[in-house]
């Protein structure tokens, strides 16, 4: 797998605090990380450990309470709306809850056409655009002809998540943050979807930050793994090291919770 030593996205002491006073929640607590170009990184942690919060900060959707984020070797600067938009050209996401990820008033076509426009192909003739959209849908085993003119609430959760991946296929960002992109998909298609993401990574040399609560899945896809507990990275290493020689107790517990982890890997059981 393609991987360079260049730090593409990094953070030092990144912290997020929600609320004030009594209601204060430290969702992410002084975490450091370095994600390299072309790498697949997994962030693993149980529910409420702060994974989504970290992802939103990386995306620049939430402000950072303390600490710095580095992008492309420099301190990230997204203070003006224009700089933000430029940043989002390179970094994209698949959100955790597909049901709330769609604007229910827009047809699916609008969503996909937006991506084509964002690629700077606004002036393409319409049938060319349809061709692109069909290709993107085909990539995630969806039929554009069946989806066109439909509204998001007419799709199943799994179809929505696949559509989100199709969106990434069209946008071809340099970094993808995928927040549990397969939570709504049955175990069989889950492997297919993950393979799609991996294929996409190989095709466009994308860096993927893969967020999951499932350490088995993380092991299956990633180069390096960060284990998160209560907003802190308790362990970070290559996937093999983390799974085969876990150091933190939390990691050991996570591994123990997954049945048959040392046996022949069978994705259909996770």
């Amino acid at each position, binding site marked *: 797998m393609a991987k360079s030593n260049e730090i593409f996205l990094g953070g030092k002491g990144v912290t997020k605090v929600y609320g004030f006073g009594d209601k204060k929640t430290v969702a992410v607590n002084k975490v450091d990380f370095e994600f390299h170009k072309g790498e697949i990184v997994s962030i693993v942690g149980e529910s409420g450990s702060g994974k989504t919060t970290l992802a*939103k900060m990386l*995306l620049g*959707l939430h402000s950072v309470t303390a600490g710095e984020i580095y992008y492309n070797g420099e301190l990230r600067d997204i203070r003006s*709306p224009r700089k*933000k*938009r430029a940043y*989002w*050209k390179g*970094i*994209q*996401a698949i*959100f*955790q*809850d597909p049901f*709330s*990820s*769609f*604007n*229910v*008033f*827009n047809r699916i076509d609008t969503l996909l056409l*937006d*991506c084509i426009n*964002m690629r700077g192909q606004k002036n393409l003739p319409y049938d060319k655009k349809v061709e692109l959209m069909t290709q993107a849908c085909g990539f995630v085993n969806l039929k554009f002809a069946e989806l066109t003119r439909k509204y998001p609430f007419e799709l199943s959760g799994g179809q929505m998540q696949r559509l989100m991946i199709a969106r990434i296929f069209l946008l071809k960002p340099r970094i993808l943050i995928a927040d549990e992109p397969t939570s709504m998909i049955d175990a069989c298609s889950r492997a297919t979807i993950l393979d799609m993401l991996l294929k996409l990574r190989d095709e466009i040399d994308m860096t993927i930050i893969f967020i999951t609560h499932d350490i088995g899945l993380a092991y299956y896809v990633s180069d390096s793994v960060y284990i998160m507990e209560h907003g802190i990275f308790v362990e970070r290493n290559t996937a093999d090291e983390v799974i085969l020689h876990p150091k933190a107790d939390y990691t050991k517990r996570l591994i123990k919770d997954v049945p048959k982890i040392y046996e022949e890997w069978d994705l259909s059981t996770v």
Partner: protein
Amino acid sequence: MKYQLQLVFKSQKFVTGFVIFAAVFLLILFYPLLVTKNPLEMTGGLFYKPGTYVSVTDAVDTQSYKINKDVVTGKLTKSVTAEEQQLMRDWLLNYCPEVKPEEVSDAKKAYDIIELWLQYYDKTVEMEGATKAVKNQYVRLYDKVENILESEGYIVSRKNAETGEMEEVAAIETKEFVNVKDIPNRVTFPLGTDNFGRDVLTELVAATRTSLKIGLLAGTVATAIGLTLGLLAGYVGGMIDNVITFITNMFTVIPSFIILILIASGLGQAGRGAMLVAVVIGFTSWPWTCRSVRAQTISLRNRDHVNLSKLSGHSLPRIVLTDILPYVASYVVMAYILQIASGILSEAQLSMIGLGPSTNKVATLGLMMNWAMQFQAPLSGAWWAFIPVVLSIAMISFSLNLMNTGLDQVFNPQLRE
């Protein structure tokens, strides 16, 4: 969108409200086409009661027909008032030596009691303890009734313009009738006239129209301001939110009606046109729309579909218009309906305390109430000058509120029983 409309029209409450409102709306739309007279024209006099008025001289001139009908009974019943009938009853019971009490209690109808009294009344009977005035009252009553009974009709005469002598024009017998349709000069006041002698119905239709316009304008102004500021405060946040919230809170602390009164009186009597009053009402009633739109926007702005829109590089106005506005639209429509209703009520309240539109070119529902109260319509028993106005206000506000409740049940299904 189409689906939502279908859903809305399935709601019984909404449909009922809508039908009432549409009926009022069609009335104010088509009535002026049928009745083209100026609604503020003073045709009648102070509080004429509802009915059709025919010209008396026309009646004399119009060709007459003989109709065999007991005109006396009708006339007697109509012209001997209830009090006079009571006087007759009193006389029979207190002073009449011959009549039996059962006879008096048996006579229920007006004509029966009059007949009974005429039969027994004698002015020579001593009325013990009665004053002279009371005695005279009975004599006069007897003469009046006698006249009706004996009436042979009238001789109509006219002064000759040259000689100045009275010349007989027509002799009218009691059984002579004219066809109302033949009389050229007729005026119908279905709801009587008001204190200025205007036709209340025509005025009411015009007033409802103006009041609806005021409500619509006030509601539009309030909703436009409230929506814009609410979206801005909710989505942009930060300093802008603080400023807007501060202003909104100020409006909450000082009741908006007080502000309304201050502005309205500040404008002065001459400055208050109907539409200006509407704008002022709208300008003082936006805060609650603003507050709820802001709250909803805040809960929407961190939703993932908004985040996705941001990631897709959409500009702030576009996100607000396509990712926030549609989600609050159903609420805004409901708020708009309530704002229209409350605009109409505010105008009525303002006018009642004399701060309404001052122009004498238009009538509004509030002004009609104000006039009726100033000329003490309730005291003079002129119910037609204010009851229809109250009913119109109630009906419009009822229908709008019903529509709102219906919409609420469609858009917030958890409220459904």
